[in-house]
């Protein structure tokens, strides 16, 4: 069978402008080769910076943000598309090869109706008439399980949910009957229960239309459900390339093995969960416009233990954290800390109350002042709570750096000079500096690559044993819950649906929502998607 897409020795470079240094050329992708046959799916997997998106876009002869394809060949049906001129490549894009972006919300034009955007490429390339394109869009909306397919196209992007947008983007890519679609992390930004529907819809649609695909993701469990072949990438180079079966079941490289085995750890929960450090009693909260976001939540956390709060976006899990920190005082109910009531509002809390509860955020980037060095960032709470200055402060900062397993050499670096994992470590050190009893961790690992995230989790566990810290860990990732929690709270639409020690909370009998949530978490197992779908009809297709 002839190859549909054949990539040979691809080399992609960009110019970077490091502050205070002359611009330099960096190689993003180096010597990557692969083949893709008609109707097959190749998964590209790797951490951020592995060059997987860049490789995917090369199938459209496109370099994002200054990336330039400087070497190699990208042949589509035997034609090297890199050698086509501007006009030639335009005939390929949106007709033969289409692209599905990670954030459909940003990739759709807010000013136009979805239907018009879905059929635009097909009509403009002269592939079909407007009526034919509309008919095809309607067919695709049905195949992708979108609600009210007849009128779905009349809506504007802001009028539909994220999961629907992602499916609409898939419909847009499928509409011109392309030979190849590049999916760039199409489900990464979605909740797990939504992800499974979108994943199933994409898989169904590309099988139905016999379209080949490049599927880019950082989640091996996801790509195992949809691909025929997998290529593992790191630092722009191929680590391993083989069939799904071989990569998942018999990886030959250490890096692939680490990816396959990531988060297989599970921690034994603490046996005694009766001595509460923090007690949340029937707490409700609402926004100033009267919109109620929490309904009578009661739970507790013991000293030196970890409570994981799980839920999808909009479930109220972050709001609960805001209530505990006092950023959003509860409208009803009360919170006690070591059996003493906690002052509801942040601004009236005493300095000692503030010190005892610290926060770590999802985006370490935005939670740090980019113009302060690590010394200032970690040193600020030392001065604020303990009045440390000068040499004493520096000594303590160095101690904290040691605790988070970073060398003293980082003390005068700026956040921009740190990697994502290092930034999160500095944020942890800043929280530790106050010597808190409770740290609220709001999805601290969800923006990180799996292996880096694992390092952060291990660090948090080590610190817990060292200094009897208690954690409230907000996450949407069940694997993390298994790895770190003592007790689990499941939230859904502002209500607590389940709470208890991990062993009880995560074993049957389940309530409907927890069941759906647990079953939606992709597992590193070929055929998992089919197995789950056969037990569960697309219940939440409206997502």
């Amino acid at each position, binding site marked *: 069978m002839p190859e549909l897409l054949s990539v040979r020795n691809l080399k992609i470079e960009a110019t970077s402008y490091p502050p205070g240094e002359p611009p330099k050329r960096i190689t993003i992708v180096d010597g990557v080769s692969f083949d893709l046959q008609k109707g097959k799916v190749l998964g590209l997997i790797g951490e951020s910076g592995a060059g997987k998106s860049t490789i995917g876009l090369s199938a*459209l002869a*496109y370099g*994002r943000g200054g990336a330039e394809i400087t070497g190699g060949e990208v042949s589509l049906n035997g034609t090297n598309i890199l050698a086509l001129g501007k006009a030639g*490549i*335009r*005939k*390929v*894009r*949106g*007709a033969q090869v*289409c*692209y599905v*972006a990670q*954030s459909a919300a*940003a*990739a*759709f*034009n*807010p*000013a*136009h109706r979805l239907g018009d955007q879905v059929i*635009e*490429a097909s009509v*403009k*390339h002269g592939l079909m008439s407007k009526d034919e394109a509309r008919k095809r869009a309607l067919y695709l909306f049905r195949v992708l399980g979108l609600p009210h397919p007849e009128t779905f196209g009349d*809506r*504007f992007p*802001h*009028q539909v949910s994220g999961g629907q947008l992602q499916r609409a983007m898939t419909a847009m890519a499928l509409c011109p009957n392309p030979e190849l679609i590049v999916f760039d992390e199409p489900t990464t930004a979605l909740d797990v229960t939504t992800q499974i529907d979108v994943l199933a819809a994409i898989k169904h649609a590309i099988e139905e239309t016999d379209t080949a695909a490049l599927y880019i993701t950082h989640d091996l469990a996801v790509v195992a459900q949809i691909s025929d072949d997998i290529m593992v990438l790191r630092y722009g180079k191929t680590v391993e390339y083989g069939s799904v079966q071989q990569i998942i079941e018999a990886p030959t490289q250490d890096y692939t093995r680490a990816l396959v085995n990531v988060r297989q750890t599970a921690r034994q929960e603490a046996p005694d969960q009766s001595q509460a450090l923090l007690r949340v009693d029937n707490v409700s909260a*609402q926004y100033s416009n*009267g*919109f*109620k976001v929490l*309904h*009578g939540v009661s739970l507790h956390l013991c000293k030196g233990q970890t409570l994981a709060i799980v839920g999808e976006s909009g479930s109220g899990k972050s709001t609960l954290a805001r209530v505990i920190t006092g950023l959003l005082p509860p409208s009803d109910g009360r919170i006690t800390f070591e059996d003493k009531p906690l002052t509801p509002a942040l601004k009236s809390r005493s300095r000692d109350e503030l010190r005892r509860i610290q926060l770590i955020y999802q985006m370490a980037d935005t939670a740090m002042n980019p113009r302060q060095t690590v010394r200032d960032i970690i040193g600020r709470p030392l001065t604020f709570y303990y009045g440390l200055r000068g040499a004493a402060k520096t000594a303590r900062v160095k101690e904290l750096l040691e605790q988070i397993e970073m060398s003293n050499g980082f003390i005068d670096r700026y956040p921009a000079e740190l990697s994502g994992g290092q930034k999160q470590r500095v944020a942890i050190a800043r929280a530790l500096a106050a010597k808190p009893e409770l740290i609220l961790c709001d999805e601290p690992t969800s923006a990180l690559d799996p292996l880096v995230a694992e390092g952060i989790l291990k660090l948090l566990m080590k610190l817990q044993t060292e200094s009897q810290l208690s954690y409230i860990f907000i996450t949407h990732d069940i694997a993390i819950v298994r790895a770190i929690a003592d007790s689990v709270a499941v939230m859904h639409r502002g209500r607590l649906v389940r709470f208890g020690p991990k062993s009880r909370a995560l074993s049957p009998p389940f309530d409907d929502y927890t069941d759906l949530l647990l079953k939606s978490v992709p597992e590193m197992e070929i055929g998992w998607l089919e197995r789950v779908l056969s037990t569960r009809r697309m219940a939440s297709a409206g997502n």
Partner: protein
Amino acid sequence: MSNPTETESLPRQRFQERFPLLALVIERILLSLLLLVAVSMLIFGGVEALPGDFATTYLGQSATPQAVANIRAELGLDRPVVTRYFEWLAGAVQGDFGTSWASKNSVSEQVGNRLGNSLFLAGFAAVISVPLAVGLGMLSVHFRNRMPDKIINVISLAAISLPEFFIGYLLILYFAVNFGIATFPATVYEGMGFIERLKAIALPTATLVLVVLAHMMRMTRAAILSVMSSAYMETAELKGLSAFRAIVKHAAPNALAPIINVVALNLAYLVVGVVVVEVVFVYPGMGQYMVDAVTVRDMPVVQACGLIFAAVYIFLNMLADILAIIANPRLRHPR
């Protein structure tokens, strides 16, 4: 669980939820009216607080206390400020701005003529400058960071940096005095033909265009550039659309709101900022009228001009706000 805030929403809240666009537009209009009333107080109060008065200026050397008191009584200046404010406001609402102290003519009639002239000048300048600015903005996006972009930028910046009276005198020097191809002063009168009118106001129009061009052009450029870097423009490119279609169909609708805003702001400036240019070119518009009135402390005229300028400014800004609201698809098509 019963939730009082969800079930018992106020009629106003329900209206806002069902017609967010209409609610916002109405809110803007009400706010503008409120603002206009506040401005009217400021104008009246400000004029009241000015040192010296019409009587002493008018009488000059012969300002005996008795004569001053007579004139003040005649003009009603001996009555309380609040009474006079409400009388003035009530008149203004009906289009009656009282009688000029200096000429004893109806202010409204005079202002009517002058306002027409001013609007004609500002309108003509707008007709030229708005398309020119938007066009140049698009051109400099197309040639971003290349020579044409830089030239457009430097020239427009130079034009905005020079005060308008200076530009005015430069234009007079070269085009009216040295080359003699334009007319000066820019006198217009009733019964003048349309083409002749245009000829007469060529130089003041050019001055105004040069002053407002740079701001609008740079805003257009910035608005389009920010839209061009968004993800949906990448989508358009990856759909294989032509650059022209991508800009017209995908970039323009989203760049509209900021452009509308800066255009309206500059239109307001054209009407209000025309004062200096009118004086330089001796053009019989509102600005000239107001400046003359100030020199003789003809308060009804000053107040009328001030209020009209403020009204024009507030109206154009309100229009910009409303258009920007309408340009937002999220408000036009609520969930």
